[in-house]
């Protein structure tokens, strides 16, 4: 790669009641992190963006031939998708790529190789992770809300 990225992560804002104990908050955020990770993998596996919900542009003929598959599932040898993860730190949830070797690939796909000397503006954008100003797709957000609801219901009962 002609550029470097330390990590590519998204801080996930979740509406959680403030009276939750730190241990409960961590447990809930970890549950949400796992859900977002699996849902992202599922959507990416379908060739759909977890940000827009839309299908990505198809692979070029040459690349399909090289890859041995026509699916734009971001899965060539598995390294990048295997390293998608989440972390709960200081009461906040972060989802994305924490390993710089894989983060740079995810950044390249998400931005269309922004900053790359000769691929910038040429490579297609395939949004893997929302930027600070963007959100996950409504499907993911409603799934998160459902998990919070279930967690709070179970806590009350």
């Amino acid at each position, binding site marked *: 790669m002609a550029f470097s990225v330390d990590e590519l992560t998204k801080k996930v804002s979740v509406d959680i009641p403030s009276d939750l104990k730190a241990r409960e908050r961590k447990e809930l955020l970890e549950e949400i992190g796992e859900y977002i990770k*699996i849902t992202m993998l599922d959507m990416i596996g379908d060739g759909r963006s977890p940000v827009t919900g839309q299908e990505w542009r198809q692979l070029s003929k040459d690349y399909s031939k090289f890859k041995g598959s026509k699916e734009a599932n971001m899965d060539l040898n598995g390294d990048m998708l295997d390293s998608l993860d989440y972390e709960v730190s200081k009461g906040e949830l972060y989802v994305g790529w924490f390993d710089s070797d894989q983060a740079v690939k995810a950044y390249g796909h998400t931005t269309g190789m922004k900053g790359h000397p000769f691929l910038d503006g040429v490579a297609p954008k395939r949004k893997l992770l929302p930027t600070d100003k963007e959100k996950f797709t409504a499907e993911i957000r409603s799934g998160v809300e459902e998990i919070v609801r279930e967690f709070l219901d179970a806590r009350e009962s």
Partner: protein
Amino acid sequence: MPVRVRADLKALLKVTEDVKKRFRKEVTNGAIGYEMVRTIQDLIDKGISPVDGEGRFEKYSDSYRNAIKAGRVEGKKTVSPVDMYVTGDMMGSLQSVERNGRVFVEFTDEKASYHQEGNSKLPQRKLLPEEGESFTKRITQLILKALRKATRNK
């Protein structure tokens, strides 16, 4: 007698009960079982374990990856995702059954138990949750979504 890897669906029992409560008699155990099998297959096709906390299946061994790349594994062209598919026998054996009013999901092909348990030569790749484990939330949400859609279309 085939070796069976079976999720007795204690993990999903609460969900199925919730589903029934929500949809009353419009949703049968058969419909729940059908959606479960379809959803589990779809996730495994993408190399994702349906068991909560397991994530993506461990990569194929280097020797197997090299064999795929060299075209020596019939019917397999890509090294990733690890979709548990070679001949289709194992994935085709995933089925749902109803016993005493409860929904079960099981693999009847014995290869499933080898993957489920793993050994010194085969990494463990969990295909169904066992006692103390649960399905990933993505599965329960997709099943609910499918059933909601099905009942809306009635």
